């Protein structure tokens, strides 16, 4: 019995060793904001998954479109129905890397600039993307933040004629992840 625990401890130790550079969050946050002269549309997804490999810089982000919440029920319906067509395209994915990962010291507290590049898939359309973000390292966690605009037309998301003037083609995405250090 004791041997079993001994082996288990060693096994866990090895597991920890091999996974030490990988950080996971399942409750990341992405806000979308669309500003226009008439009104502001805001939605939030608090269930965004991400894996960050601090050794290689690899970064994966995955989120379900239906998990976006809006203050107005109708907006939520429209977002899922006409715009994102969540029935056909239930999720959005980013696969890429932090290209300047060597400049970020995950062992030292501080705020670092991060260059992120990779492929983003929204509404079934995949595009190359290159954005800037911040990595904030502290004793207990790694925070990852970024804000950037996405043109709806790039991703084949159509706006009805009636709303052409009230919905801007450029939508602001605010990304906020908290990776816990084990």
């Amino acid at each position, binding site marked *: 019995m004791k041997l079993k625990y001994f082996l288990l401890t060693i096994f866990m130790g090895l597991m920890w060793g091999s996974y030490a550079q990988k950080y996971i969050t399942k409750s990341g946050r992405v806000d979308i904001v669309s500003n226009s002269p008439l009104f502001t549309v805001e939605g939030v997804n608090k269930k965004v998954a991400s894996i960050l490999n601090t050794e290689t810089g690899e970064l994966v982000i995955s989120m*379900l479109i239906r998990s976006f919440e809006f203050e107005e*029920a109708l907006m939520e319906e429209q977002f899922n129905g006409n715009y994102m067509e969540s029935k056909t395209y239930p999720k959005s994915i980013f696969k890429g890397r932090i290209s300047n990962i060597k400049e970020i010291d995950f062992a030292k507290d501080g705020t670092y600039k991060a260059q992120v590049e990779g492929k983003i898939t929204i509404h079934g359309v995949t595009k190359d993307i290159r954005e800037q973000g911040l990595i904030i390292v502290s004793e207990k966690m790694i925070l990852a933040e970024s804000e950037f605009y996405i043109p709806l037309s790039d991703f084949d998301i159509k706006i009805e004629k009636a709303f052409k003037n009230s919905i801007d083609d450029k939508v602001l995405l605010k990304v906020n992840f908290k990776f816990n250090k084990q």
Partner: protein
Amino acid sequence: MKLGQKIILVITGIVLVVGIGATCYVFYKPHRNIAKEKPAFKMEASGLFGEFNMNEDLGNEKFGDQVIQVTGKVAEITIDDNGISIILNNSMEAINCTIDAQYEERARKIEFGDSVTIKGRCDGFDMIMGVVLSKCILIE
């Protein structure tokens, strides 16, 4: 009052009523009430995961946007500023339930290993999160 004035008054009235109605419809339409909806499916957590894992597209087609009631063992509880998530089944084959704000108080009493029944809206499936259920409520 002249006939012309009457007509203008009536038309103005109609436009106002329709306008206010439309505004109310847009801004005050209530959100879907998951608590009151009858579940389209009642199943074990492992069974729901299995169906999505076998074929994600079929899983989305069958369960996407549906209210599902699942029973399973609590494998993980996450409490942070983004709310409470309860993970059923196991961490690798998870049913990831976001608890509705109104049920957070009760969710805090749940412990690791408890067997619980949760009802929520199915948002889909992801390799990291597993099957995601939103606006979840706890069933006795």
